[in-house]
């Protein structure tokens, strides 16, 4: 017979909340997804273009940086702007022919383009090392990370988690980008984007080159995708094709839905909640096998999303009025 007290012990253990090593790594992932979804927010929430290929930009950013640094011997810092430029160029290549399509067709094109990137990465072994991936690009970052760590130790915190510098840089960038993007969308430029979202023909009839604004929006999303890709690569210390599944984009959309459309701070909260719930549920102590608990985590996340859709469809910070009128 099972001890009844054991069943009721499903509450989270106290250590779950104090394991700073663990929460640092959750924080990094959450921060990376804030950056990732900041560009998505610009596309989906502000411009009305359904970009389902954001992970493709992430892959291009990560791979370009990794290959240039580890295999072509480039300076790590120099590889970053080049990788961003590569992601933007890819955005323009898919945007130029397909942004004139209707929203749903554009979504299909982008998802296919991102998959094409992943499959090329998997098969172009000479360039990408195939499924083994690319290693050894993180030296420059590691030395920066070490000096940040030393600095923190000097301040008096001695047991700094090794990933803590990456956490700081990720969130620094995330907050900086959110701030910059929310400033940008409050300018006349952002007003044109919203007009394109509402009615492209009306915008064009008022002298706005809607197509050019959609391309600009996509290029900026590509930029944030590439930046998220750098951090993702530095977090894992390697780049493999399998990390760039379409699921990554869908998770980005879950972040958007949780946080609410057309609001950047929603993206931050959405990402923190999503990853805290998803990762925090690892500490659930249930009389179940580990694989079952792993599956349960996603089920619970699914219920959270369904519940949110039912009771607060605009997300945490979305504007319900704007959402209803937008249709």
């Amino acid at each position, binding site marked *: 017979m099972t001890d009844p007290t054991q069943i009721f012990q499903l509450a989270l253990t106290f250590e779950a909340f104090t394991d700073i090593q663990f929460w640092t790594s959750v924080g990094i992932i959450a921060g990376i997804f804030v950056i990732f979804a900041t560009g998505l927010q610009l596309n989906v929430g502000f411009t009305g273009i359904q970009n389902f290929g954001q992970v493709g930009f992430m892959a291009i950013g990560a791979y370009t940086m990794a290959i240039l640094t580890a295999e072509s011997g480039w300076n790590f810092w120099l590889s970053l702007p080049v990788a961003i430029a590569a992601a933007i160029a890819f955005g323009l290549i898919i945007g130029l022919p397909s942004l004139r399509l209707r929203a749903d067709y554009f979504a299909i094109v982008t998802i296919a383009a991102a998959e094409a990137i992943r499959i090329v990465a998997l098969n172009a072994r000479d360039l990408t090392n195939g499924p083994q991936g690319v290693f050894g690009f993180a030296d420059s970052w590691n030395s920066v990370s070490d000096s940040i760590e030393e600095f923190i130790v000097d301040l008096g915190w001695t047991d700094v988690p090794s990933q803590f510098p990456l956490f700081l840089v990720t969130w620094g960038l995330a907050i900086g980008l959110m701030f910059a993007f929310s400033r940008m969308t409050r300018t006349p430029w952002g*007003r044109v984007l*919203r007009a394109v979202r509402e009615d492209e023909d009306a915008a064009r009839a008022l002298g706005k*080159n809607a197509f050019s604004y959609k391309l600009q929006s996509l290029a900026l999303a590509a930029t944030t995708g590439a930046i998220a890709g750098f951090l993702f690569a530095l977090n894992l210390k390697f780049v493999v094709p399998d990390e760039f599944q379409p699921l990554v984009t869908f998770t980005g959309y879950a972040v958007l839905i949780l946080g609410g459309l057309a609001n950047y701070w929603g993206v931050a909260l959405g990402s923190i909640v999503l990853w805290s719930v998803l990762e925090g549920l690892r500490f659930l102590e249930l009389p179940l096998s580990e694989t079952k608990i792993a599956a349960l985590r996603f089920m619970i996340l699914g219920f959270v999303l369904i519940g949110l859709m039912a009771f607060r469809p605009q997300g945490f910070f979305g504007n319900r*009025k704007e959402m209803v009128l937008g249709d």
Partner: protein
Amino acid sequence: MTDAAAAAADATAASPKGRSLFEATEIHKQFGGIQAVRGATMEVEEGSITALIGPNGAGKTTFFNLITGFYRPDRGKAVFDGREIQSRPPYVIARMGMVRTFQITKALAAMPVIDNMMLAAPDQPGERFTNIVFRPLGWRKREAEVHEQAIELLDVFNLAKLAEEYAGTLSGGQRKLLELARALMAQPRFLLLDEPMAGINPTLGRRLLDHMQRLRSEDGVTFLFIEHDMEVVMNHSDRVIVMAEGQVIADGEPHEVRSDKAVIDAYLGGGGGTATGAGAS
């Protein structure tokens, strides 16, 4: 006596006959098997208020779409202010000063009324991405001017108190007015209105017509408007162009057009045998 004559001469000089602001020549457009516009040719005089009428399906709205860049004509030429426009995109045509509204209003629903208005203003440097990055405050001054203009115009159309409301909360008539006010924010020289009076109450409709007259006399704005209300067409336009089955079938002053046999046939009969019956009635 001589003064009056001089004034009359001035008046005719101010709106010289023949100075056409817009010309369309032999515009054709086919959709699948349907020839929507078949060789429409017309001229619009500068400073005139010209009505474009015709039975349903005559191709009036298609013609609007063709000359504002929303559709590309299969054949034909459109010239605005001496420049060919038939292959230019809509936003270029709008920036040239030829601005249109839509039959089914296109209010930007999830944007406040004031943003709808300010969006339309030309020459806002803050609409360029490079400007907002490198001169982050450079657009503020223009924005303030535009805001002032927008409020003034909204006032004309009784919409000022709704400035901060979402456009989607406006009634159908209010949206129509907003769309017209928004088009005026773009500082057009040539304004194309697709059924501006539809769905507006008569009081506001009169206000709108008065405003059109004022814009014409004060700012020299030229109007081409599609309208079904014959009372409005006959009393408020200088010229009437009639389309039927994709062609221009009559063009003249309101009283001329009213008695034109082809027009009466087009409205009442359609082609063939019924035409004689309609002509007789």
